[in-house]
């Protein structure tokens, strides 16, 4: 059971400002059914340009609903410039804190507010677009969004980033990239490197090489393939040639060659040895195997 503050419980059981403002000046919609939470924020300004009325509709857990309710209370009476300065941390602090795994609810609140302000400034036409390139494909989170939660909340681990914006919480295939973003921003603050990157110096014995290849496939490659209904099996290693078979969705996928070159070979070269190249064992791929849909 989650440890929610009394304030959050109050806003969950007695949500304020539910609904949609009529003829709103700004509308912000973020999240989706697939992601598990979504928020629609609407507001209306008074003559002085301050937020006179704000309402919300939220699909999500207790903390998503409580956070949304609190947000509408917080922004009332603010000018748009003032409102734009709100961070997710301000929202969480106002609630007396949120469980770590629920911090993404406060980020969703801030994003909806931003979207609504942009919508107003764009004359109601501009659709809210998230800048940057997508890093986490499972939850559609971009590098810009990750950078922002890292800076605003002083995050130093991938797990924290997942708690704050969900990135890395699906298949886990982007965790290495998230780590690089954290390192770029936090530099020396990141003390322990959690993902093992055991590229060996010096020559590997055959046994060491095969073990390292297997380990890299297990830890670096399979999780991402599995998330998309696929799998990979190490068939054999002959010198620098690594023979693998793709299973399930990967076996039927037209992009197999792309996947193999791009992911498997790159990972093996990064973690084991630069000389390695990958070949697919076509014979065993003919047999239907895992995860057939």
């Amino acid at each position: 059971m989650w440890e929610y503050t009394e304030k959050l419980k109050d806003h969950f059981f007695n949500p304020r400002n539910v609904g949609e403002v009529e003829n709103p000046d700004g509308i912000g919609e973020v999240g989706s059914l697939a992601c598990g939470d979504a928020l629609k924020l609407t507001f209306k300004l008074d003559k002085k340009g301050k937020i006179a009325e704000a309402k919300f509709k939220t699909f999500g857990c207790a903390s998503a609903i409580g956070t949304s309710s609190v947000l509408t209370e917080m922004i009332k009476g603010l000018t748009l410039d003032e409102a734009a300065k709100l961070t997710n941390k301000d929202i969480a602090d106002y609630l007396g804190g949120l469980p770590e795994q629920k911090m993404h609810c406060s980020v969703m609140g801030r994003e909806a507010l931003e979207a609504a302000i942009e919508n107003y400034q764009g004359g109601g036409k501009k659709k809210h677009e998230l800048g940057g390139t997508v890093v986490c494909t499972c939850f559609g989170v971009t590098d810009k969004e990750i950078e922002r939660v890292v800076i605003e909340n002083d995050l130093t681990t991938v797990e924290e980033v997942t708690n704050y914006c969900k990135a890395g919480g699906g298949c886990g295939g982007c965790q290495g990239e998230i780590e690089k973003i954290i390192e770029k921003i936090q530099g020396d603050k990141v003390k322990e490197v959690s993902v093992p990157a055991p590229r060996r110096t010096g020559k590997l014995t055959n046994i060491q090489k095969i073990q390292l290849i297997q380990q890299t496939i297990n830890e670096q490659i399979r999780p991402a393939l599995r998330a998309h209904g696929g799998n990979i099996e190490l068939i054999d290693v002959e010198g620098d040639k690594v023979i693998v078979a793709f299973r399930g969705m990967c076996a039927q996928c037209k992009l197999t060659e792309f996947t193999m070159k791009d992911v498997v070979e790159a990972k093996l070269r990064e973690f084991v040895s630069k000389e390695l190249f990958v070949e697919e064992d076509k014979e065993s791929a003919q047999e239907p195997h895992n995860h057939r849909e």
Partner: protein
Amino acid sequence: MKTVYFDNNATTKVAEEVLEEIRPLFCELYGNPSSMHTFGGQIGRRIRQAREQVADLLGCDPSEIVFTGCGTESDNTAIKGALAAAPNRRTVITTRVEHPAVLAVCRELENHGYTVIELNVDRQGRLDMAELEEQLDDDTVLVTIMYANNETGVVFPIENIAELVTSKGAIFHTDAVQAVGKIPLNLSKSNIDLLSLSGHKLHAPKGVGVLYVRKGTRLSPFMLGGHQEAGRRAGTENVPGIVGLGKACELAAENLEAENSKVKALRDKLEKKILQKCPDCRINGDPDNRLPNTTNISFEYIEGEAILLMLDKYGICASSGSACTSGSLEPSHVLRAMGVPFTAAHGSIRFSLSRYNTEEEVDYTIEKLPPIINQLRELSPFVMK
């Protein structure tokens, strides 16, 4: 406020009769059954009796019962122990809807060079026997398929599966944690080689489980360091747990049919009334092959954790397959494997009953639930007025 406990697939109340049975085993009869003196040695008799009581419920020989620390330990022992005893075959078959105690173990095996095949289920949560038959070959060492699903209550045709699997020379294990005590079993007439059960799911205390090992099944022990359980599970016996589980099995065997028809009637009423009173909801799982005590209902466009917290305010305990309740970000792997759309998976609620539930509790829940659903739907941006 009274607690209405509809979460019996998570854990159950210890039966009063069970508690009475084990009470003296803490401060008076606390000896070690392995001791030479009478004080300890007499406890061995209690364990023998418990072994017989469990065997009676399962319809097997007492020598085929191995007591363990929990259902998860039974599953781990069954899978790893069976593989260790048959090192020449390298393929394991399971399903996408197993409990993590099986699924996580199987997926870990891939890291050790095993090929793991996860069978799909259809929208009702049913297996395709033809797919299983197609996948079975002479490299298959073990097939592990649950008896009944903990989330949806869907019951698989385990007897047919066991017959098919063993006829192909593979070992068959079933995680029957949710089935024992709810479905009549007769292992002497079945082809099941290994079966796991857990004490606290059938009104025994937590911390005790059983692995049924059919005579002649080769299995390497998981715990080493003692002669207990005929060398199949080392470690001083959890005497109160084992004796309590024996008593719980005796109680289950006595009233299995009568109690389950009562529980089923309550479940059916709860389910029917909820469907009548709440629009846009659906039952997850094959209604024709289901545990008598379980219903899994999806409420579209709202989220499960929010429903649970509102029920909690009225003292009603249930569980959910939503992402938020699991601490992960993805909804239940079982519902996803069944192809339940996201709109419904996040809003799924499981009610699981036991013989201790009453009609009053069902009526109370039927009264409290619909306004909660309405209230949350008013908050949802996906519900249009």
